[in-house]
């Protein structure tokens, strides 16, 4: 038995009991912040106006329902242009981006996303007046027991 295989076996086994420290194989908070920077450039991002609904304890990381709402009248003069969802702990930071118009009525979007591990997710909204607003939420993701992983 190769060393790395047995170590993975043991980690996997410990992880099944929610005990494994993650090896940090994926980039952390920096990658989400870098993605947010790339979006907003030099503009200031304020906290607030964005609602992010995600279960704090995730049933299964393969499919997590997430709802985003942005507080806005959604008129021609004052509406949400887009909302962006970023991950701190997935292999890649981008999850999804929704683009609204005044005809949307409400700036809300619901989807099912993947979370590779326990992490913080960030939601950033871009308004028609050029301002940016953000919020974040922490989630706990455990490995499933009894899968096809040998």
């Amino acid at each position, binding site marked *: *038995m*190769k*060393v790395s295989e*047995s*170590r993975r*076996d*043991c980690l996997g*086994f410990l*992880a*099944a*009991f*929610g005990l494994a420290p993650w090896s940090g194989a994926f980039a952390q908070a920096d990658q989400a912040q870098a993605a947010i920077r790339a979006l907003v450039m030099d503009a200031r991002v304020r906290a607030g106006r964005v609602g992010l609904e995600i*279960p704090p*304890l995730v*049933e*299964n990381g*393969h*499919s997590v*329902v997430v709802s985003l709402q942005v507080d806005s009248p959604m008129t021609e003069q004052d509406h949400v242009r887009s909302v962006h969802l970023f991950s701190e702990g997935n292999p890649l930071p981008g999850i999804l981006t929704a683009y609204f118009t005044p005809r949307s009525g409400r700036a809300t979007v619901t989807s099912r996303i993947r979370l590779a591990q326990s992490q913080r997710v960030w939601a950033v909204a871009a308004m028609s007046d050029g301002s940016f607003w953000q919020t974040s939420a922490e989630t*706990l*993701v*455990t*490995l*499933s*027991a*009894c*899968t*096809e*992983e*040998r």
Partner: protein
Amino acid sequence: MGRAALHCRFQAELFRQIRRVMVSVGVCVGLATIISGWHLDARAAEPQGRRSATLDLSRDTRAMQDDDSLNPATFWRLDGEALWRERVGHANRSCASCHGEAPDAMKGVAVQFPKMVAGQLLNLEGQINRCRSMRQGATRFAFESNPLLSMAIFIGAQSRGLPIAPARPMDPVIPVPTLPQSTPLVNAEIHSDSAWKSLLETGRALYTRRMGQLNLACVHCHDERAGARLGGNLIPQAHPTGYPIYRLEWNAVGSLQRRLRNCMIGVRAEPFAFGAPELVQLELYLMERARGMDLETPAVRP
């Protein structure tokens, strides 16, 4: 001592330690469940004591199961509906050719399986394939293939909400009014009930038999520790009320046999092959243990 041998010893010792922890946790839980009056004998279990895993789903996952417009299994069900009408094989027959419309013909059918057909214990997938080869002259669907799962979901969905009731040879014969008169009634098998009882007993023995490197039997988790947690997951009582299910872990639909194989891999046992008699016997035992509970096909599970 070589490095590989050291790691194997480390792993064996780790399993022993973890088993010790599980046993001590299990003793506490086991005592609690004994005190609360939980019965291990399936036939003696009161309906009130049994709990479908549906009740323990998160709000979002429950919504996914209850709403066809959110449940990905709907795609497989729609495929099954199309397959029901498709003429295939030498006989150039569709399911509809013999059975007519599925909501009428298949209502109450899925809940009868597994059952004895021509001396053999068949689950629903087995019956579908039997019809394909014998009645339609078509090739059988491969185990766990999308067409087979689609048909099992479509047929199962016609019994949603009905009580699980595996057909026993001693039960009264259930006529199939939609079959033409010339077709022999395949579900009217009158066999000695001792054959069926013996298969049920084999299923029960498999359920209580220790397996794998972890040396655990189904009963240790699903009877003795149901409601406790394994890592972040709640241990269910393991009533197969919703199969084939959409499992979030698979991102796909799958049969009860696929799920049972996952359990066996989970205890580090070599899983039975798809279609193995042991799996069908286990299915029979589990469905009999769930007798009276509502069918929920297609359910969503984590």
